[in-house]
């Protein structure tokens, strides 16, 4: 250990840090090969630039040679480098010698080989054998930066292989061009896959052009990495389903093979135990509820909470086959199959001795699942029914109660900011589980919850919050400030138990649905965006026969789909109300209730770390096209 004086740069700035490279031959002859400037941001080394732009280049060459001759005299061979700084006094100070190939050696030898040129004696210009002057910017610490992806695990690498980097640079037109003697050369390709970094040299006809080329190549790699991270995040979500261990001492996990779990059934619950049914993944690509429930199991929470709160909870993975296939549904939309005809067909099949309800009637998988879930609901006769969903669009969480007052009251006490009434019954095809329940089990407090966007981590957290609220709220414990007990009495009024920041909406029209494959938004739509009657929202039809879809009333867009499926809803149009209303639009609060002091305004999107979806009319159609599996007409996410 030793101490030496710090060489300050010009006041307030870091001192420039050039370096010189040379080689000592086996005959002891010294050749100075190059001068470089280090590119620094603060103390972080970003790379180097060749040749040095320093006005002291000649002195760098001379000092490097003098050090080389000293090395030769002491019996050292081969490549070496000398690091300098240019002090605020304008003088060159030598800092240290590196006896080995350093970061600048590789890029320089590459340039030498590719151009067959040399650096001039003054150390400030490199001339190829064709007489062209060339500059480069290089780094062996180029980090792959995929940017922000919602819910992504950014701790590892995105696994870019050498061929990916080579193809990426080539496809962006930046690969080495022997004719122009410019282009990008890559090195340390093997470390990208595991360590997320690689080396790169950009050779160009000026220093600025080299800097720009380096930046463009880096951008191209980062764009590729972003795509990779999106895909990887998708896979991580699917894998979580399979990976959550079931042996924390609390039994199993909700999986495609173990699709019904009961809690608190074997425990000693009192006779008035509250029966709750929660369905997750009614759509196979909306798995936030499954992930949330499995996390609550793994945390040791769910079993204990059910016993403590006297809750008999049944959780159901709604559509196991679609979940395994990572699709919205396998054959038909499960949430349109809760209809009498399917239940009757299942009952008839059971009477005929057909024990496998999935084998009913026309054999659609989802028909069997719907019959199975309807049968379970009739058997359990729950007090509370929750159906956990997520959306394709960026969206805050919102609740969709069945159209009864008690359900609306329950919705108003869940950890969401928006309640949309009527929507669960406004689908074009009908047959949601809430539709069926309103006919057959209207006394149940039933709410569907849209927890957020499919791939957002926050959606899992919302799902967990809803499950916790339902389980603990049933005994009057409140874990959510601003929400009172979830116990809803038949004749209860909302009174002040409703959080003051809760926004209430009501669907005013039937849904608009996606009429054909030509459907595309004509503007960048966002959930809960206000529209005016007559606004042109989307186009559809063919190029020869284009049609437009306009807003039929003033209102708010709810659940605008980013993954349109022909025949399913494109969006719902809703109006804001000051509180829950009944089906005829009359307030369902009794007159004794204090009106809210002011109606909350709908400035809803409050989504952390997620910028508004930057979609425009031109990028949108291609997004749709790329995602459509034309064989099935189903959108692949």
């Amino acid at each position, binding site marked *: 250990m030793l101490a030496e004086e710090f060489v300050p740069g010009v006041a307030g700035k870091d001192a420039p840090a050039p370096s010189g490279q040379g080689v000592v031959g086996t005959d002891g002859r010294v050749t100075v090969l190059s001068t470089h400037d280090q590119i620094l941001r603060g*103390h972080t080394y970003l790379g180097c630039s060749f040749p040095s732009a320093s006005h002291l280049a000649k002195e760098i060459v001379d000092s490097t040679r003098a050090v080389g001759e000293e090395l030769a005299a002491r019996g050292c061979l081969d490549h070496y480098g000398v690091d300098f700084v240019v002090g605020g006094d304008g003088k060159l100070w030598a800092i240290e010698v590196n006896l080995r190939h350093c970061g600048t050696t590789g890029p320089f030898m590459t340039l030498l080989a590719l151009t067959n040129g040399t650096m001039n004696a003054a150390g400030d210009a490199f001339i190829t054998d064709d007489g062209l002057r060339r500059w480069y910017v290089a780094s062996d610490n180029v980090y792959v930066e995929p940017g922000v992806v919602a819910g992504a695990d950014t701790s590892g690498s995105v696994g870019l292989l050498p061929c990916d980097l080579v193809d990426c640079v080539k496809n962006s037109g930046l690969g080495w061009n022997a004719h122009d003697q410019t282009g990008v050369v890559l090195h340390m390709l093997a470390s990208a896959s595991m360590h997320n970094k690689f080396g790169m040299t950009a050779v160009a006809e000026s220093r600025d052009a080299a800097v720009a080329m380096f930046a463009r190549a880096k951008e191209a790699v980062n764009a590729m990495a972003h795509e990779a991270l999106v895909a990887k995040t998708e896979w991580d979500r699917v894998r979580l389903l399979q990976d959550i261990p079931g042996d924390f001492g609390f039994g199993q996990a909700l999986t495609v093979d173990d699709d019904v779990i009961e809690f608190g059934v074997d425990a000693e619950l009192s006779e008035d135990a509250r029966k709750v049914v929660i369905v997750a993944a009614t759509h196979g690509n909306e798995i936030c509820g499954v992930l949330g429930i499995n996390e609550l199991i793994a945390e040791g929470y769910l079993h204990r909470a059910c016993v403590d709160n006297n809750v008999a909870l049944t959780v159901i993975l709604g559509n196991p086959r679609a979940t395994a296939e990572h699709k919205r549904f396998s054959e038909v939309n499960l949430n349109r199959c809760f209809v009498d005809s399917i239940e009757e067909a299942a009952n008839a099949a059971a009477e005929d001795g057909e024990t496998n309800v999935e084998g009913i009637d026309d054999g659609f998988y989802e028909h069997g699942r719907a019959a199975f879930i309807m049968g379970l609901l009739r058997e359990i006769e729950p007090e509370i029914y929750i159906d956990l969903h997520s959306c394709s669009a960026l969206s805050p969480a919102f609740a969709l109660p069945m159209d009864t007052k008690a359900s609306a009251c329950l919705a108003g006490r869940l950890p969401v900011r928006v309640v949309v009434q009527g929507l669960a019954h406004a689908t074009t095809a009908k047959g949601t589980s809430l539709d069926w329940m309103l006919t057959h089990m209207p006394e149940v407090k039933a709410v569907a919850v849209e927890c957020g966007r499919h791939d957002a981590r926050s959606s899992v957290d919302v799902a967990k919050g809803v499950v916790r609220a339902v389980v603990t709220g049933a005994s009057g414990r409140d874990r959510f400030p601003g929400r009172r007990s979830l116990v809803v009495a038949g004749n209860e009024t909302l009174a002040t138990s409703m959080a003051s920041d809760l926004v209430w909406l009501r669907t005013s029209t039937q849904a608009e649905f996606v009429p054909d494959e030509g459907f595309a938004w004509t503007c960048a739509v966002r959930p809960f965006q206000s529209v005016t009657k007559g606004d042109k929202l989307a186009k559809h039809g063919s190029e020869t026969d284009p049609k437009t879809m306009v807003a039929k009333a003033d209102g708010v867009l709810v659940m605008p789909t980013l993954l349109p499926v022909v025949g399913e809803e494109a969006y719902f149009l809703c109006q804001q109300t000051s509180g829950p209303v009944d089906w005829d639009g009359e307030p369902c609060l009794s007159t004794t209730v204090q009106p809210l002091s002011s109606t909350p305004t709908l400035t809803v999107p409050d989504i952390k770390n997620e910028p508004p979806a930057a979609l425009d009319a031109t990028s949108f159609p291609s997004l749709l096209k790329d995602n459509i599996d034309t064989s099935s007409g189903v959108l692949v996410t």
Partner: protein
Amino acid sequence: MLLWLPGACVNSLDLTVVIVTSQAVNSDIVDYYVGLAVQAGGGANVSEQNIRSRLHMLDCGDATGGVPLTDKILARPKLVERLRNIIGVKAAKAAISTITCTASEARLASLLRLPLLAASPSAVAACGTKSGSRSMFEAAGVRFPPGTSLSFSVDELAVKIERHVAKVPPSEIKKLVVKLDESFSGQGNAVLKVPGGMSAAAIRDLLPNMKFMGMGVTWDTYMPQIRRIGVRAAQSPRPCLTSMSQCVSIYSH
């Protein structure tokens, strides 16, 4: 190492390149550099076939960390034999080039019957360290920042710094960079601010509060290295080929 391929193959048309690595190199990487070599050669005499016939990629199939590549090669006599066969009749024109040599490099050179071009360990120790750098700058007549000589304990360094700032007025604060003798990329550097005329004892107390430049470095992690690196620098240099590149290249003409 493959980055050298275009230059090596194009500049010497009868050069044979043998690259030995710990683990096999991805074939896409080899393809990329062979492609660059063909471009660099302008197509005429340097076809892809020509380059591939002169390029030999060998590996130890051994990902063990912390073992020098040369030792991995020596542990595989059949690999050494293969190397000797490749070099074959060209042995008279070939040599092994490494930065320094330990007994392992000497053994490999003797098994391959090649001369070893490498600096002696003591020469590397004398030149490649922070203190070695300063002594060479002095001998070469190159301007370098004033500072202390190499110290092997904190107390010794404090005394030398006291001497260094003795003539500086107390109103002036000297900014010093404290360096471990063997370290890379500023990892062993720390910045110390000392008022002029300060005593060794007071300087000794300042040292633990230096601003350490290395990632995650504190006085507690820095302290033990003072002794370890001091001793190593004094007695034996680190063996070559244990660090970054893990590659031996044998160029035979």
